[in-house]
């Protein structure tokens, strides 16, 4: 007799805890063959606000960690992913669920990912994390300056995290793109609230489990699953989000930029209609970190 397996209840990772949506709503995730796989939390505006609150609490502590410590924690996250490559490959190979990212309704057929394609996305993700782990204690030296002013002052420019950053992951590359957005933001000491791919949310559910075991303080990364149409307006208007980044459609970009003006939010959005090669090293590096910092310039007189 074969053993009946225990199926996992997918929960999102918010504030260091695994939660269902406060609304108790879910949407079904089907595997590539169209069979029911699991119910995914359909996070609400309230879940988003709660996540922002968790990110706000974690913010000061994370920003005050030493860059060396932040680097080690991000490295540890890569270790966790490396150790669970097989699980993650299965998650990626569920394929693009046959649901619309806008409203969760069934549409079309899913495309399963090949084994090698899944493995490629995972190794690229691990390497991306290692890349940013190394930047944690270096970007300041590349981005900051001592400024030679024409007066007797010591003048220097340093970077500081912006605060809480809202991230919108694209539908494709559900692990690699999500991590490519999160990594530079947290390397710089920000905390994030990220909306995972709607069509392929399961890799984000697993990523949450890896974040939880990576020494990353709870609340630094908060992952939501759900529908963009429902959540993007709150990403746009929430005044505690100091910046919005990620991938968005033309309509979403306009909506986000309009509302961003109300609190002078920083906006760095990649058009969804232009394909991004997430495997390229062009999408990683110190200038991605730079997009998530503020510059502060300090003056002090030089004298006895």
């Amino acid at each position, binding site marked *: 007799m074969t053993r009946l397996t225990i199926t996992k209840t997918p929960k999102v990772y918010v504030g260091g805890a695994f939660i269902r949506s406060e609304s108790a709503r879910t949407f079904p995730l089907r595997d590539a063959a169209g069979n029911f796989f699991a119910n995914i939390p359909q996070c609400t505006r309230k879940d988003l606000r709660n996540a922002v609150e968790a990110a706000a609490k974690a913010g000061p502590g994370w920003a005050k960690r030493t860059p060396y410590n932040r680097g080690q924690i991000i490295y540890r996250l890569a270790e966790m992913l490396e150790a669970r490559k097989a699980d993650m490959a299965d998650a990626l190979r569920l394929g693009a669920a046959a649901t619309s990212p806008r409203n969760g309704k069934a549409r079309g057929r899913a495309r399963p990912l090949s084994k090698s394609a899944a493995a490629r996305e995972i190794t690229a993700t691990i390497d991306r994390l290692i890349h940013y782990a190394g930047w944690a204690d270096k970007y300041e030296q*590349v*981005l900051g*300056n001592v*400024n*030679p*002013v*024409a*007066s007797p*002052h010591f*003048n220097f*420019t340093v970077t*500081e995290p912006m605060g809480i950053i809202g991230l919108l992951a694209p539908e494709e590359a559900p692990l690699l793109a999500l991590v490519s957005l999160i990594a530079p933001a947290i390397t710089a000491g920000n905390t994030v609230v990220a909306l995972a791919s709607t069509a392929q949310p399961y890799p984000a559910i697993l990523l949450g489990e890896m974040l939880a075991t990576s020494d990353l303080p709870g609340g630094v990364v908060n992952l939501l699953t759900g529908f963009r149409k429902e959540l993007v307006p709150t990403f746009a208007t929430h005044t505690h989000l*100091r910046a919005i980044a990620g991938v968005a459609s033309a309509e979403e*970009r*306009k*909506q986000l*930029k*309009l509302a*961003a*003006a*109300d*609190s*002078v939010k*920083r906006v760095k959005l990649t*058009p969804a209609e232009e394909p991004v090669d997430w495997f390229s090293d062009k999408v990683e*590096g*110190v*200038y991605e970190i*730079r997009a998530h910092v*503020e*510059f*502060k*310039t*300090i*003056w*002090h*007189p030089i004298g006895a």
Partner: protein
Amino acid sequence: MATLTTEKSSHPTPRASGRPVPGLIFGDLWEYDPAPETADPKLKARYDLFIGGKFVAPASGKYFDSINPGNEKKLADIAHANAADVDAAYRAALQAYDGAWGKMAGRDRAKYIYRIARLLQDRAREFAVAETMDGGKPIKESRDFDVPMAAAHFFYHAGWADKLDYVAPGRRAAPLGVVGQVIPWNFPLLMLAWKIAPALAMGNCVVIKPAETTSITALKLAEIFQDAGLPPGVVNIVTGFGDTGAAVMTHPIAAKVAFTGSTEVGKIIMRSLAGTEKKMTMELGGKAANIVFDDAPLDQAVEGIVNGIFFNQGHVCCAGSRLLVQESVAADVLAKLKHRIEVLRVGDPLDKNTDVGAINSKEQLATIQRLVASGVKEGATLFQSPCKLPVRGYYFRPTIFSNVSMSHRIAREEIFGPVLSVLTFRTLEEAVEKANNTAYGLSAGVWTDKGSRILKLSTELKAGVVWANTFNKFDPASPFGGYKESGFGREGGRQGLFDYCKLA
């Protein structure tokens, strides 16, 4: 803190003559004779638009008056550019970008920008007088700060033009194309330099609109562009009101727009560009906290506070408009401040002795009056310098509000005038909390003798510029710009160059 040494009073000892003791030794001993700056500002009766290297009349044929706020006399007619003029300016800029300027080697671009710096230095006094007449700022400020600093911005940025490879290590920096810029009236020539110099250094061409009350030095600088042989269309200057500014910000050719001005207008611009992919930088308002701890050298701090809020009549986005003073020294600091502002000389901006000049416009004077009235109404204690004000022109007495609470409008809203709100604190944590409790985040000041406390505060204060034991210092090599609703992007230094290029 108790010490063994005898405390010295900062007041002079009574003199035998029986004369009453003045608050400050030089306070009332003699009257100053007028000392007007007499250099010729070489103004024209009429200023046209500067498009494609030539001065051209506006399409509408309309002009408006530029008024000297120091005496309300008309200085010149200024062209009012409409959308067609702005379009012509963008076309000229694009032509220059696709042509001479875009193809020019960086080291040649540098030479043109160096020339501009040098020619401006040559005509520094003339520009200073024009700036003071047009904007109302004291001649000592336009002469010693605005004009030399504007020249310094061109000189500094000129040297970057052939060093683009060092802007972003590991990546190649390329110009954006044509950039649209709108600047305010508080530092007309200096803001022009802040905007144009980095844009040109990085290889862009420019369409820029000065503020309607202060267009003259921009168009005088256009004369220098001609003298320098700057290729036609590299910089185009369109003058006018909000409608002209909107046309500059929303023109389809603009690859990037840069705005310095109020947070309110900044938000309107952001909304108007929401449907576009234009790059933006915003340098907006501020409500800076200037924090004085009990161990600070108080006399020095008082000078810094005065400079922080009364420099340029307080028409400074980074002005130290909220004084946070530690409770134990609050009375002392307030008394010193009152003495100090009583001897600030308010009046004719062209007088070399003038400390505080004219308010830039009638409208701005009304705004200041309205906010000061709200301060009185909400229960803060008003103190104003009893100085005499000129009969004609727009003037406002240096003003200090004490007993201000965080909820008062004068503690939250940008007044943009010579009005200081004084609040107190007991602990460092309270100072940080109060300083950061604002939608703005442009600048902050800290006064203390303790180095570790300066570094702690400079980390905790959410502001783009922190002045420790100094205030209102600027330099082309020093990045300037805000956190939160004070805007985004930086101007000056290596950081400022990023906002005028794209990384290949």
